[in-house]
């Protein structure tokens, strides 16, 4: 189990690195898909099969397809480099480093690695999630459905030719 996790983690980190290092969007997209899938693997190890599959179906299967689709449509090739954002160029690296250090210290401070207490694996079956979703979270659920509807309309309007 643990080994599997570390493998997945390594894959995810490397793929993420690739995402931001590649200069061609398609490669970034592909490596992002890899990240997603390895995260799905992590979810599996966390005992959440349903969420893992959802992650693959929706994220990898739908959202990223959309990305790839757009990349093909706009035939986005090798990106052009410009250096207009001084702010980002000078402050970017130190800021990134700073926040990484800060967050990691927080984690190390708050959740010591020795803490091994793990509650009994909870029932993450689709049924359980369904119950929670349609009992306690029914209102947010409805709201999200509305959000999606609006998003669809917005996408259609935005992508229309005469715009």
């Amino acid at each position, binding site marked *: *189990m*643990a080994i599997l*996790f*570390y493998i997945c*983690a390594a894959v*995810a*980190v490397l793929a*993420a690195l690739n*995402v*931001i290092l590649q*200069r061609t*969007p398609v490669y*970034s997209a592909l490596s992002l898909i890899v*990240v*997603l899938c390895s*995260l799905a693997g992590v979810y599996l*190890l*966390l005992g*959440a099969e349903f*969420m893992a599959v959802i*992650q693959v179906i*929706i*994220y990898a299967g739908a*959202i990223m397809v*959309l*990305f790839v689709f*757009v990349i093909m*449509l*706009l035939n986005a090739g090798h*990106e*052009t480099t*410009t250096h*207009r*954002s001084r702010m*980002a160029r000078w402050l*970017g690296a130190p800021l*990134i480093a700073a926040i990484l250090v800060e*967050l990691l210290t927080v*984690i190390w401070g708050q*959740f010591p690695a020795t*803490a091994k207490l*793990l509650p009994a*694996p*909870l*029932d*993450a079956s689709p049924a359980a*999630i369904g119950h*929670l979703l349609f009992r306690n*979270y029914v209102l947010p659920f409805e709201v*999200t459905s509305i959000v*999606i509807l*609006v*998003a*669809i309309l*917005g*996408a259609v*309007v*935005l*992508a229309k030719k005469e*715009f």
Partner: protein
Amino acid sequence: MPIVPLSHYLALSIIIFVLGAAGFIIRRNIITVFMCIELMLNAVNLAFMAFSRFLGNLDGQLFVFFVIVVAAAEAAVGLAIIIALYRNHESLNIEDYDSMKM
């Protein structure tokens, strides 16, 4: 068999998040930048999942569920916007979209 401590999950999530943030800053292709956002979202999702597992309640997973759904909506709209931008600017370079200043 050995148990992975919570902190490792969180560390992973943080690393991915920071990578996403870094990508947001260093990349110039708007689609890649957008993907970096997705990357950060996923990092947060991972944190949610880990907490839900270690706190032993399912709500975290539902949060992830909602995040994914919203991310889908966001992707749809965002990509539509990108297409519209491309039509107007004939460019995908994020630094060409600076017509909103001053």
